[in-house]
């Protein structure tokens, strides 16, 4: 499988993971290690930036994941930029998952504020991975301002509903010059495989692993699904066709 390059970093795993909703730090670490994920996002709100002695960070640092702090909880560009600066200083990384969702129920991202914040954060030297609606125009605009990826949602975060936005995601993948990471709503390994077969560069999975009965086994299942989907994409999946291939062609008289 081809490795994935984001900014200046090479990833061999195309499965990105999150740290929320696990039943304990140990279960989280074991599941994330089993997933072979190399990039792990965590919410600033859960981290104790003052003393780094909290329930999440030690487990992640112990397993040597690349950290992707996210701004979950902020409601506009100004708050996101402020939080990003603090994260960069406290965690010594300029990578940032930009999440701006003023709606606290479905956590749907605010495209307008996200674009505004992304523009400023890129100028300030951040590697920005923005969480967005599956909006092809917005994704091109984010690419134009210099984000490292786009991260469109498959369906509302935590919903496990799969790729309900598949038609838009297909357009985003077709048009994008930067990696496309399908971010939210992936509830089953088959959803992850579908995204990868479509040509997504990576997927980010959290809830489906964290709240499963057996998070380690589910993490492995996602790993395999992502690999299977990617391999199928690279092997050029046979086109599905609704048209019959006639064994006696109608146009043979032309040759």
């Amino acid at each position: 499988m081809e490795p994935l390059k984001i900014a200046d970093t090479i990833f061999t795993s195309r499965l990105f993971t999150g740290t929320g909703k696990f039943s304990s730090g140990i279960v989280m670490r074991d599941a994330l290690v089993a997933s072979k994920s190399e990039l792990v996002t965590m919410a600033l709100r859960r981290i104790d930036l003052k003393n780094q002695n909290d329930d999440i960070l030690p487990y992640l640092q112990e397993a040597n994941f690349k950290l992707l702090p996210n701004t979950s909880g902020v409601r506009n560009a100004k708050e996101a930029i402020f939080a990003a600066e603090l994260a960069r200083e406290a965690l010594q990384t300029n990578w940032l998952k930009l999440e701006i969702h003023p709606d606290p129920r479905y956590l749907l991202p605010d495209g307008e504020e996200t674009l505004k914040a992304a523009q400023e954060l890129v100028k300030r030297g951040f590697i920005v991975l923005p969480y967005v609606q599956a909006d092809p125009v917005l994704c091109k605009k984010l690419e134009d301002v210099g984000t490292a990826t786009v991260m469109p949602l498959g369906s509302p975060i935590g919903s496990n509903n799969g790729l309900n936005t598949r038609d838009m995601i297909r357009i985003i993948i077709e048009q994008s010059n930067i990696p496309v990471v399908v971010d939210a709503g992936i509830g089953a390994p088959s959803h992850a495989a579908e995204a990868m077969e479509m040509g997504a560069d990576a997927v980010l999975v959290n809830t489906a692993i964290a709240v499963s009965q057996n998070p380690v086994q589910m993490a492995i299942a996602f790993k395999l699904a992502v690999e299977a989907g990617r391999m199928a994409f690279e092997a050029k999946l046979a086109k599905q066709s609704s048209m019959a291939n006639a064994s006696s062609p109608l146009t043979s008289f032309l040759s």
Partner: protein
Amino acid sequence: MFTDIIKEYNWEQTTNLIYSKTVDDVISALQSKKPTIDDFMALISPAAEQYIEQMAQKSSLITKKRFGKTIQLYVPLYLSNFCQNNCVYCGFSAKNSIKRKVLTFEEIEEEVIAIKKLGFQHILLVTGEADVKAGAEYLAKAFEVIKKHMSSISIEVQPLKEEEYSSLISSGLNTVYLYQETYNKQKYANYHLKGNKANFENRIDAYERLGRVGVYKIGLGFLAGLEDWRTDAFFTALHLNYLKKQYWKTKFSISFPRLRPHVGQFEPNSIMTDKHLAQLIFAYRLFDENVEIALSTRESASYRDNMISLGVTSMSAESRTDPGGYAHPEQNKELEQFTINDNRTAAQMAETIRSKGYEAVWKDWDFCLQ
């Protein structure tokens, strides 16, 4: 405004409607992917009691999907027990001759340091209504002291003015808990005899003020033990529905405090049993998968333990209802608002949560986000 909506309802008719819900209504509500307010009525009706197991199963699953296997921990800090109101069910009531105290800022810091040692990062500040001794200005100064040690500040105080809320938000306020106590306007006056709290409208309009200034989270609920809990539960749901649509950037949390023993003679008018409270929590979860549900130390240890995985999302622990009680537990007992029901330490509570396969979350906010 919600006061306009509530005018369209008649308390007795609403009660009758809830009690007339049938088993068929309950089954249809249970099968609905997105229960309506009418379905909610069925879920809190007597007819739903025999379906409590199915409700629990569904509530548990939905909660796990939305909130994960986590329980957030918070702790109340009573700043003052001075109160200008006379409410028949409350130990702080002005008419009760109890020792009164308002914490100084030095004492607040002492308390917060004691609280931090227990592990808490989310604090809920509680006062009686005393606009001079413990008003908005006092709270803002208290925030300055508390912010150095905590990650999130909530308040449960008298309704404030819009500009006071707004200024407290810029000083670090995250959540405001405000309980209407009862939505029965006629009967409200029987419980709230004197003081600003006797003004039903001022209290109910405070939610609009909070929404307009964009507070992060509003906690609402009613006091179980005053009027028929089913009817108050319905009006709280109606209120929640209204607020969600009107103030879409605000989060909501809900809880149903049941009356506890306190100084004074008030006997509950309506009893909500353990089973009823469980039914109500499940009904809310089915009705709104995003609303946070808190269960305080008013409830017993065994009850709380059993509810950890069934729909609740946050719990208090090692709570003291006497101002000054964390740093000086022996001196202040006579100042308390009511006697708590679960006396375990925060560490024991966290261990119990872990033993149930859930993570105890101490920190889920940061001042850098606001």
